[in-house]
């Protein structure tokens, strides 16, 4: 799958998601993606599995299994959540190169993104607080349903039920 993206600033770029079913070289990082409640001013490789050692606590909140880990002396409590059906997480790497054709007028630069890794779940960590369904990240998943409702083509029977409120139960 290839996506073309033209932003309002006039910048163009491509994102190569490697094809959902193709045998791409993307590494599977499922179970290894962590979202920490801090800003780490570093970008690059690090021996995460040697230092960051999540453990199961046996506690369950909102049906979420609570894990515990420590980072820089802080106690973190987190939970691993699967990404919704039909969605995947991607780790993208940037490739920037100058355009060769003189006819390109938008600064001469284009950006392309390549999939370096994919993942199907993410572990969300809170500092001090237990994870909960009310955490912003989990609530962000609400958007998937809203987006679907907003962008789904309207069918004849949708019109029917909309003009007859109460005829069909919706939630």
């Amino acid at each position: 799958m290839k996506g073309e993206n033209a932003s309002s600033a006039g910048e163009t770029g491509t994102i190569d998601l490697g094809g959902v079913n193709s045998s791409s070289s993307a590494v599977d990082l499922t179970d290894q993606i962590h979202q920490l409640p801090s800003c780490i001013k570093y970008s690059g490789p690090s021996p995460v599995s040697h230092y960051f050692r999540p453990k199961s606590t046996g506690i369950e909140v909102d049906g979420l299994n609570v894990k515990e880990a420590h980072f820089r002396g802080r106690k973190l409590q987190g939970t691993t959540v699967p990404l919704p059906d039909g969605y995947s997480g991607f780790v993208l790497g940037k490739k920037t190169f100058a355009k060769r054709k003189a006819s390109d007028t938008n600064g001469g630069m284009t950006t392309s993104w390549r999939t370096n890794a994919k993942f199907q779940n993410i572990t969300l960590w809170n500092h001090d607080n237990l994870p909960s369904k009310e955490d912003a990240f989990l609530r962000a998943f609400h958007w998937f349903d809203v987006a679907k409702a907003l962008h789904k083509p309207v069918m004849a029977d949708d019109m029917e039920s909309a003009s007859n409120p109460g005829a069909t139960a919706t939630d």
Partner: protein
Amino acid sequence: MGSECEIREWASTPCVMGIDEAGRGPVLGPMVYGCLYCPVSYMKTLSTLEFADSKTLKEEKREELFESLKGDEKIGWAVDVIDPRELSAKMLRKNKINLNEISHQSAMGLVKTVLDLGYLLTEVYVDTVGDPDKYRIKLTERFPSIKFVVAKKADSLYPVVSGASIVAKVTRDRALQNWEFDETAENMHRNFGSGYPGDPNTKSWLEDHKHSVFGFPSLVRFSWGTCEPYFKGGVQVLWEADEADDDDRKTAKRQSKLSNLGFTGMKRKSEDIESSGKGRCKFFQSRKLEQLSHF
């Protein structure tokens, strides 16, 4: 952990207890609270057992005394081992708990443990580094039936506290010797030294085990000021919890001092991490969603 295997027949006679700590100052390893208790009538004998402030004794002598007090049927003991991860976590929480509070909770926990075992504690001698009067009042409020004697250097004044200091110190030393690293980084070694910040072995251990992203293995108490110099040039990590310090002048000052060294974090404007959300629909704001036109 302690001598709770079976209740001694003297449990219901008036008992005296001493409480002391080991490993409060060190930058690494657990802090241990230890207590020793015995019948009030046994106190005279206790003073002949050569218990002295554990710091003045050689390691072998401490081990020997610990073994002999364990074998003494008129003596009971218990310890509370506070993991360095717990110390760091509590002191770096959003609502920070200071070391004195952690210490007081631990000491009170020991009193409660021994009372719950069924021992009739009437007098408890406690060593402290903080204000003895305030601490005594706090203890008395919690346990009104017990007479508390709180003193600085109680470990060299009262044999029952000297005994407690031996229990605590031996337990701390063993816990450090037997420490199992959670981390699996290469080239880790166990030449910790005493753990005191001034100890050359401790200094070189810290130097050998620092990591620019992760800081240190979790044996280290990250909340100790000693850690900061090791992080000059380390990766800066910002935490929301450090923002709250703005309200508290004293802490804020300390935090900004630490942040100059690029370690503990620093006060920062929230814009550094996320946008203000101005003009965004509430649905997106509350879910921290933002439309990106380019990235």
